[in-house]
């Protein structure tokens, strides 16, 4: 068997080259004078010729020696909607899973030092685990229950209470795709739904003063805030809310967010906190979340820190 041609040594990004966040980091790497990172995800493997041979990865004619990689950033295995609509257990599902498995192996390669290692990322994606860790650290978290009984949730949380998907609220129907946002349920809603058919995270409803989005990279963090006045429960449902985040110099939430990301062992996180009349409360975090919609005072340094990690191995340098 012919070994792949001489590999380049550079950083590696597991992510979609069309993802704006990947693009921004790649540009920042170039600005720092670093070599172009090798970019791969499951979708790329599915549409381009590739080969994994020992510690060599070749994709569409480009090659990289994984053990020779310096640093790695695991952004996402695949685009968010990749494989959406695939029927579980189908031939297509088997194919997708095979590509995902290859990406998983690449993301576990021991050569690169990953900003967030794969297994740490998977743990950190677990909503209940996040809450458990935050609670154990003494942070306020919403009262939370996962149950097949809506009345049990109401008894525990009071009415109305909030529900959000365990993992992903995106699905396809014959009439097109749909998304589930964080929503408050009333007694009337409980009469209408089958609570047992799919588990959701149910939480007490908080009345926030402001939303806080904290982006952490290594030991650094930046915060943006959004006034909760006149917002829906899930701010993403309000178009103007996407443009009204402002930089916030909030040392308290930054300290809390860094402690939490440190406890979870993740080099990057996008965290959601609320402030109400009683202070800070942790809502959830995403170890592969978005940050470019935030003001440039927040998003730009976060982008540069990831790039510095890829080039220099130190996001704080």
């Amino acid at each position: 068997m012919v070994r792949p041609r001489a590999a380049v040594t550079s950083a590696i990004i597991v992510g979609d080259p069309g993802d704006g966040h990947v693009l921004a980091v790649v540009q920042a790497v170039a600005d720092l004078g670093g070599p172009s990172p090798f970019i791969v995800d499951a979708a790329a493997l599915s549409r381009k010729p590739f080969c994994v041979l020992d510690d060599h990865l070749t994709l569409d004619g480009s090659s990289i020696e994984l053990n020779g990689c310096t640093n790695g950033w695991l952004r996402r295995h695949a685009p968010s909607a990749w494989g959406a609509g695939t029927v579980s257990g189908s031939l297509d599902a088997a194919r997708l899973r095979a590509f995902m498995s290859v990406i998983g192996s690449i993301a576990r390669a021991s050569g690169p030092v990953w900003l967030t290692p794969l297994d740490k990322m998977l743990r950190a994606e677990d909503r209940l685990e996040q809450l458990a860790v935050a609670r154990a650290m003494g942070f306020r978290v919403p009262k939370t229950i996962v149950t097949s009984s809506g009345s049990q949730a109401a008894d525990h949380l009071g009415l109305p209470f909030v529900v959000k998907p365990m993992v992903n609220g995106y699905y396809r129907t014959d009439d097109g795709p749909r998304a589930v946002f964080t929503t408050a349920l009333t007694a009337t809603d409980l009469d209408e739904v089958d609570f047992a058919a799919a588990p959701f995270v149910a939480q007490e409803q908080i009345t926030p003063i402001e939303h806080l989005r904290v982006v952490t990279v290594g030991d650094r963090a930046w915060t943006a805030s959004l006034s909760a006045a006149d917002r829906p429960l899930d701010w993403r449902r309000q178009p103007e809310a996407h443009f009204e985040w402002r930089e916030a110099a909030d040392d308290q939430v930054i300290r809390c967010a860094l402690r939490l990301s440190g406890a979870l062992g993740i080099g990057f996180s996008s965290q959601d906190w609320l402030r109400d009349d009683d202070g800070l409360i942790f809502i959830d975090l995403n170890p592969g979340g978005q940050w470019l919609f935030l003001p440039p005072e927040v998003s730009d340094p976060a982008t540069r820190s990831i790039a510095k990690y890829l080039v220099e191995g130190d996001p704080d340098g």
Partner: protein
Amino acid sequence: MERPAGHGAWLQADLDGYRRRMTQRPDLFEYLGEPVPEIRADGTVHSPTDTETYDDDDIAMLPTSLDEATIISKADTETYDDDAGLGNLADLGSSSTLITRNDSETYDDDQGAWFGLGLQ
């Protein structure tokens, strides 16, 4: 209603009733799910709420590669390539649209919105 005999039969009756309840009412996904733009396998985006016309089919054609990523600005009607500002998302404001293949985020000037599929 006549009671079925024996513990096992009672248990089965309970389970049957439980399953009937599950099938008669929508679950939370069905009950709460809202239409969002669809990204199809052929690389087109179909939005159920967006009335903006990107092309004559009312469908936004997505670029086939990063280099073909396109920003469409409603304000000046020019089409830029990625060199012109993919890295400047914050500068797009509410009057522009960024479309990239396989990117589930749509920056949509009608909605002013970003349909954060997977966004947390």
